[in-house]
């Protein structure tokens, strides 16, 4: 996510006209690299925000399994969205991220995450998330972020 408080722009990615799955809408994208790999999708459910992306040929390795880079980028994006929505879009950056890859996903799979803010202080956030395909956890990530509060 952004580290300059007023410098963000919602990016339009008309070139990748990938429809949102039923029940999901496109998430706004602020970072060029997330737009490059997106779109990412979001939905509000039970008072929480879920995020998802559809695996296509940009997100896999030569064997057709999800690339760890695509998963770590999506995780970073999910955590940024979660921290932004809890801090009035305060600037924040990743300090450390630990990612476990439990099972691969394949082209056409919808990878879903509900990021969990484990603890958030004035200038730090501890966040984690499980990444699911058809209800099975395929990736598990936890991270530490630094925040610069707007107020």
């Amino acid at each position, binding site marked *: 996510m*952004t580290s300059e408080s007023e410098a963000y722009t919602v990016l339009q990615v008309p070139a990748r006209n990938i429809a949102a799955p039923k029940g999901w809408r496109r998430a706004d994208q602020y970072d060029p690299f*997330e737009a*490059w790999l997106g779109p990412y999708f979001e939905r509000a459910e039970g008072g929480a925000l879920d995020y998802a992306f559809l695996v296509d040929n940009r*997100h896999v390795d030569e064997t057709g399994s999800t690339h760890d880079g695509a998963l770590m*980028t999506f995780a970073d994006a999910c955590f940024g969205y979660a921290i932004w929505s809890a801090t009035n879009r305060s600037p924040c950056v990743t*300090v450390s991220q630990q*990612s476990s*890859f439990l099972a691969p996903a394949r082209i056409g799979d919808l990878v879903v995450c509900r990021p969990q803010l484990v603890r958030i202080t004035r200038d730090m956030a501890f966040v984690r998330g499980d990444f699911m395909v058809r209800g099975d956890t395929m990736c598990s990530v936890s991270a530490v972020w630094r925040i610069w509060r707007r107020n």
Partner: protein
Amino acid sequence: MTAERVAAPPGYTVLEGAGFNAYVGPVWRAPDGKSFLLEVRDIHMNGGGAIHGGMAMALAGIVMGGAVRDALDGAAAAAVSMTADFIGPVKLGDRLEGRASITRRTRTIVFVSCELGVNGKPALTASGIWKVAGGQ
């Protein structure tokens, strides 16, 4: 942000790959075969003027995965865990380069770490665990 042709740094060769690696690349392999280099372009950025953490972690994975494959003489292996610490900034146009070292190799598991930096200044440290395919 479409196909732009970029010249290889002298002596470097492109890291062949399909899917993600080709789409976010090119990633260059140094003449010694051990170091990997990314020239940071507009597509790699976050909204705050730095490289996106996901791209930096992806490069760390590529660097460590290359070292693991070398250590296994090409046998297949997959990352099961990776930890990355972001210790310094990386900006547009920077040449982010790093190499990995194998900490320990068993029959089933390879422990590996790497450091990425810009002009020798550290930007990211990472460690990872790779599972050897079919390893008993």
